[in-house]
Structure formats: structure tokens, C-alpha cells
């Protein structure tokens, strides 16, 4: 599927890559100290959680759906994790699988409703957003700092990469990178991954071709829930606390990263690699604004919103070009009534 030549399918990824390189270059020119390898690695460290939920979101959007609950489930995970560790004094060995299971269960619940009763994904996952956030407050209204030794050790772990100076990756970044590689493999080389693309291309065709559409659709949302939970664990490592207002607006950051990475919101087209690049673009915009110093950090939201608009516009343009072909079908269809 991936060819070295630039063709219509690869073009979006190159656009995003170009965008990232451009921004990195601009930053390096404008700000002293910007051009540093550690800055590049920091993108992974600071946005590890976004990479993980971005992966889940990519699969969901490629299949033609959407998941607005990811930020809240992430927050819920941080709350439950810290609560179980600190208040119930459970061991991390138990806690981690437990919260991952919780994420899968929530995702499965939403996927089941969406698939079985043909309910609109954005409403169900929007309700899921409210549900998860409400449950956050049920666990605790205040922040819960984590003093658990294991977590602290893992959080402070640094993978040293001595080339080009003293650079390192923290544990959450390592987890994220490994997960992204696994996801790349899943999307390209497993039947599950290819079925996701098929469903996004034409769900009706996928059903007629005998693919396990029903099971896959539910599994996609369960997987997204898993990603949210994993991202929550990673986020807990990053902040060493549980806080109910975490993840506010994160779903939008994830969707934005996915769209900027070249995935079509209408489904069927997209890639994990694109999302990775999209997250890097998101990350670097934030860094640029911080380096700039005078701009309100909320400008990130505006710039991201604008980029999303731009990419949606481009998608719409390409869609209408492809739509010309569809006219043939429609004209012919109306003539045939059996």
C-alpha cells in the first residue's frame, strides 16, 4: 500500500510532513534555542497521551464514526487510578489492568449502542463524555496526588539517547511510541485493520463482501476506550495525579490531529502515520506559541481550528471531484426499477 512515489493517496501525509518541517524551520530561525534534538523528543514526551488517543480516534474516524468521549474517559482513568492507588492502596499490578478493562468496557458499551440500534455516534459519545466526566466527580472532586513508589519510579525513568548530545525520552513517550508502532502494524497488516478501512469506504459493500462488520464496529469503539484508558495511565505518569478537569477539550485535539494528519472525517481514508505527524504539528504549534512568549496560549486552539477548517475544505474539494463519477451511477439507477 505504501509506495515510495508521491501519488494521490500519499499526498496528504506529505502535506502534513511538510507543514511540520516548515514550522520547525520557522521556529528554529525565529527563536534561539529552538533547534534542539531534545525539543523534538519533548514533543513526544509532552504529547504522549495525545498520540495514544489519536490512534484510537484514527480507527474510529476511518470507520466513519466519531468518539467524543476520549478526553473524559482519560480523566476518569486518572481519577480511578489515583484513587485506587492512594485511597484503596491497591498495587499498580492490579490497578493498571483494571482501568484498561474499564476503558474497554465503556467503549464496548458505546459501540454496542451505536451498532445495534443504529444510533448516531456523535450523540452517544457526547453523552459518554458527560457520563465519564460525571463519574469523575463521583470518585473525587479534589485532585489526588500520587505518592505510590512504583509510579514515581516509572515516571522519573528516562531512556537516554546519547547521540547528538544528552537527550532522553521519558517512560510515557516510550510507551506511546511503541503503541504507535503496534497500531501501524495493526492498521496495515491485520484483517481487523483492513476491515476498518473497508467499513469506512462503504459499510454496505463490506457487509455484502462478508466482512464481520457488526463485530468490528463494536470492537473499534472498545479499542478507542482502551486507548483512552492507556492514555490516562500515561497521563497519570506525566502529572502524577488525578484531576477531574483533565482532558477537557482533548477529544477535539485528537480529532484535529487526526484531520490534520490527512484522515477524512467522512471515513475510509487515513493513516496512523498521518496522525503521528498531526500530533507533532499540534505539539509544535503549542511550542511555537510558548517560545513566542507574548501570545495567549489559547491561540493554539484558534490555529488548530483554522487548520482543521483548511483540511476539511481540501477534503470537501477532493470529495466533490470524486463525486463527479458518482453522477453516472445515479443517472443510471433511476432508470432501473424492478
Amino acid at each position, binding site marked *: *500500500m505504501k*509506495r515510495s512515489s508521491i501519488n*494521490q*493517496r500519499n499526498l496528504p501525509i506529505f502535506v502534513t510532513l511538510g507543514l511540520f518541517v516548515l514550522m520547525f524551520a520557522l521556529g528554529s530561525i525565529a527563536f534561539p534555542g529552538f533547534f534542539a534534538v531534545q525539543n523534538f523528543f519533548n514533543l513526544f514526551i509532552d504529547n504522549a497521551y495525545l498520540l495514544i488517543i489519536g490512534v484510537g480516534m484514527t480507527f474510529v474516524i476511518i470507520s466513519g464514526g466519531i468518539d467524543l468521549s476520549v478526553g473524559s474517559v482519560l480523566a476518569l482513568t486518572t481519577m480511578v487510578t489515583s484513587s485506587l492507588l492512594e485511597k484503596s492502596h491497591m498495587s499498580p499490578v492490579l490497578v493498571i489492568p483494571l482501568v484498561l478493562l474499564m476503558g474497554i468496557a465503556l467503549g464496548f458499551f458505546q459501540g454496542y449502542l451505536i451498532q445495534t440500534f443504529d444510533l448516531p455516534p456523535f450523540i452517544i459519545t457526547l453523552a459518554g463524555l458527560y457520563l465519564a466526566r460525571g463519574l469523575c466527580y463521583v470518585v473525587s472532586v479534589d485532585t489526588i496526588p500520587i505518592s505510590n513508589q512504583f509510579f514515581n519510579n516509572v515516571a522519573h525513568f528516562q531512556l537516554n539517547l546519547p547521540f547528538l548530545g544528552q537527550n532522553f525520552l521519558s517512560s510515557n513517550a516510550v510507551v506511546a511510541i511503541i503503541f504507535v508502532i503496534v497500531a501501524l*502494524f495493526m492498521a*496495515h*497488516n*491485520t*484483517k481487523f485493520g*483492513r*476491515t476498518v*478501512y*473497508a467499513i*469506512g*469506504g*462503504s459499510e*454496505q*459493500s*463490506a457487509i*455484502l*463482501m*462478508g*466482512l464481520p462488520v457488526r463485530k468490528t464496529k463494536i470492537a473499534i469503539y472498545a479499542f478507542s476506550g482502551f486507548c483512552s484508558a492507556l492514555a490516562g495511565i500515561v497521563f497519570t505518569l506525566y502529572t502524577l495525579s488525578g484531576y477531574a478537569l483533565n482532558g477537557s477539550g482533548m477529544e477535539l485535539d485528537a480529532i484535529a490531529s487526526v484531520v490534520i494528519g490527512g484522515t477524512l472525517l467522512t471515513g*475510509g*481514508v487515513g493513516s496512523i502515520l498521518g496522525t503521528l505527524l498531526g500530533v507533532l504539528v499540534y505539539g509544535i504549534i503549542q511550542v511555537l506559541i510558548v517560545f513566542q512568549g507574548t501570545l495567549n496560549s489559547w491561540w493554539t486552539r484558534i490555529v488548530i481550528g483554522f487548520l482543521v477548517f483548511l483540511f476539511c475544505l481540501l477534503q470537501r474539494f477532493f470529495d466533490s471531484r*470524486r463525486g463527479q*463519477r458518482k*453522477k*453516472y*451511477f445515479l*443517472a*443510471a*439507477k*433511476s*432508470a*432501473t*426499477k*424492478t
Partner: protein
Amino acid sequence: MSDRVPILEMKRISKFFPGVKALSDVDFRLFKGEVHSVMGQNGAGKSTLVKVLTGVYKQDSGEMLLEGKPIRPDSPLAAQKLGINAVYQEVNLCPNLSVAENIFIGKQPMKNGMIDWPKLNRNAGELLARLNIYIDVSQILASYSIAVQQMVAIARVLDSSSQILILDEPTSSLDENEVAQLFKVIKKLRDDGLAILFITHFLDQTYQIADRITILKNGVFVGEYRTSELPKLDLIAKMLGKELSEFSFAAGSDKSKKTSSATSREVDSILKVRALGLPGSIAPFDLTLDKGEIVGLAGLLGSGRTEMARLIFGIDSADQGEILIKGKKTNINSPRNAIMAGMGFCSEDRKSEGIFPDLTVRENIVLALQGRKGIFQNISKKKQGEIADEMVKSLGIKTPNANILTKQLSGGNQQKVLLARWLATNPILLILDEPTRGIDVGAKFEIMELILNLSKQGMGVIFISSEFEEVVRCSTRVAVLKDKAKIAELVGNEVNENKIMQTIAGGE
């Protein structure tokens, strides 16, 4: 050639739906190494037959035998396992995946738990080569023409276990060259021993490709014939359920009266269409309509009648030709333009393109009139009621009052509501696409009387119906369509069913 024993036999298959007998004791058989075409008009039961065969429906009575053994597939997958595969007009593949992937998805070759992409691409190439198609299988499907996509769809269903291939309207979106290519492939598959069920409404194509023809009408089996032994005229007659001898010439005598009054060329021409056409829809055609004239469009299913109406009314935008309304060149590229120019259009699919079942009778009736006036020139509720009541009365719509939801009315009365909507706008030209379909006999006559009265008052009418006798009864002139083109125009004494059928069979 064909074997004596059919590979597939469907015996006395019946399938009922609430209120309708889709199939009644239908027999059908397929032979290996043969192309068998099933032909019929609206409601014949062709698609139901295919759905029973492919396991989408289960028959209510009758049996299916595959190689002598009874089968009863309960899903398309089950049918596929039996070796029965279908390729539909819509090419049910995923346009975003590569050609190779479309062929093998769900059954990809695996290596070490991963998809073996090189092998996948190689196998796909080989499969297509068998059909004499040589393309880059790693490109996505959407980058190829519909014709190629169809070949890919066919390639997907062909493997060693495939015994029966069903092609449902495969040529509707293809041009001449692509049809020829497809037919080459079909002939090769046939010669290799495949049994092919070919569904099409294109007469000429049937005679090109099919070895055998089965005719259905209204869910009933009319007959199975070898193509070489069935003249075109006979085929048409049997599809319509007519015997060649029983044609009504009665309308002909009336026609001469009508044409004589209309021959004075002083009357205003309402509509003049010159070389209007759209590729994939209908070949360029001319049409004129004078005041008080009823022009009928006659043709078989799929001949292009609705396409013609849609171009005139602006639903589709023609890419060549011009339309003159009352002698003035008018740009009609949306229904709104057409309505402003004084046209009205009753769609043949009144449920999804015509009435709003969830709006009241009154709202449905005043909608187009209100649309023409715009948002601010509101028709008061009182006036709306008056208009609606008047229409209900003059059209004889059976409804307790104009404020009940339209979905509660019977089919015939819903059709009248749709008609009332357009009459309320007082159009100069009314296009009626199958206005009598699915309506009881009494209502049918009422509507036809109505149409004749309207024309007497000066309204121009374009009347489309699959029932040739209706077209003949109502029209002063008849345009004959065949295979997405207008092939002739009949006037005066020529306006009779016999002549229409002969024209279609003759195929100018």
C-alpha cells in the same frame, strides 16, 4: 454447448409481501456454459428472484435444487459458499481500497500472522489476467472507471468454487466500448463452463449476449425460450402480457379528430426542446409541445423516459441543447427555474420524491405554490384551507379533511394530492411520470379523465406510463424511447400499441 441437465433449478417459487405477490409459482433453470437473461417490466419479480437465489430472501414455497440437491441459503454468505455469486450495478466494493485488496479482503493470504501483500497483489494480477484485464492492482479502486470496477467485482467472486454468476444490470453505466469489453469477458466465462444469469432491460444487449431468455410478468412465469427462437416483437408482447392480435385501434379514430384541431399552426408552442442531452442519462433529443397537447412518452423500463422528464424539469442539468418556453430561450438548471417558468412535475417515486407523508394534506398541496411565492408572501391559513378544500373536491380526494397527515391516505389519494400541488400553481406545462402506478382502477380512470380535461383547458401535458394502452388513450402524440434514446415520434393513426411495440422492436 449447454448440458441437458440444468445446474440450478428453481421450482414453483413463491414469495409474498404484505399486500403483494412478488413471485407466484415461478420456475427457472440455469445451465452450465450458458448466459440466461431474465426479462420483465415493473413488478415482474426479477430482483425478488435474484434475492431468493442469493439468500437475501427465503421463499415462502417451492424449492431450489443445485446440481440436483435441495438448497436453501439463508444469507448472501451462505449462497456464496454454495458457489452462487452476484455482482450488482452499484459494484458493491470499497472505493478506498486497492484493486487487489478489494478482490481478496476477508480472505487475504497470510504469512506469519501478517497479511502477505506481495502474494496478494500477485494473485490479484493473475485473477484479472484470466479476464484479460491488465491493470496496476495496487492502485485504489476509485481511480478506475466503472467498467473496470465491475471487472474487479466479477474477479472477486470468481474462484474455483464459483458455479453461478449473477450479473444485475451490469451495463447501465457503460459506454459502447465498455459493453463490448464486458461481453468478451462474459463469453469467455461462459465458454469456461460458468452458468451466468444476466439481468438487463436493454433489449439489443439481450439479443447480443444471452443464449436463453426467461420472461416474467407481475411475478408470474411467462415462458423460457432460446434467444434464437424468440423474435423481438414476441418478447415485447410477452413482457407486456399482450397477444399480437389483440391490439386496440379504437383510440386511433379519436386521434384523427384531435390532430386535425391541433394542426393549425397558429397555436402557441409551450415547449420546444432542441438537442437536449446528458451522457449517461439520455441521448440528445428534440421535443415540442403545443398548447392543449398531450405528448406521451412510451418505452420499456429503462428506456430513458424519466431521464427525459428530469432534464426538461431541471432536476438534472443537461450538458448540451436548449429549452424554449413559449418561444423564449430559458435556462432550466434547477426545479426552481422550471417552476418559475410555469412547469410542474409529478415524480414517479411519489413516496421519496413527491409527497411528504408527515405533512398534512393542506401543507402538501400548497407547498409548490408557496415555494414560488417565497417566504414572505405567506398564504394565510384560511386561504390555504380554501385552496386545499377546492382541490380535494375537484380531484375527488378521499379524506375527512385537509388537516390530516398525508401518510394516512391511500396510494391513489396520495397521488391526487401530489397532482393537486401542481395544479394549484396553475402551470402551463405539467409533466406526469407514472401518475397511475400502484393505483386502483377507478382512480386510474379518474386521473386520466382529469388529464384530458386539463389539456382541453389549454394546459400542456407530458405523460409517461409503462402501460402503452394508457399512453395511447391519453396522448395526441407519442414519443417512443428505447435504450436511453428517443427513436421515433408517432402521430395520428400511428398512435396505437401495435405501432409502438413494432417501433421498439424494429429499433431505429
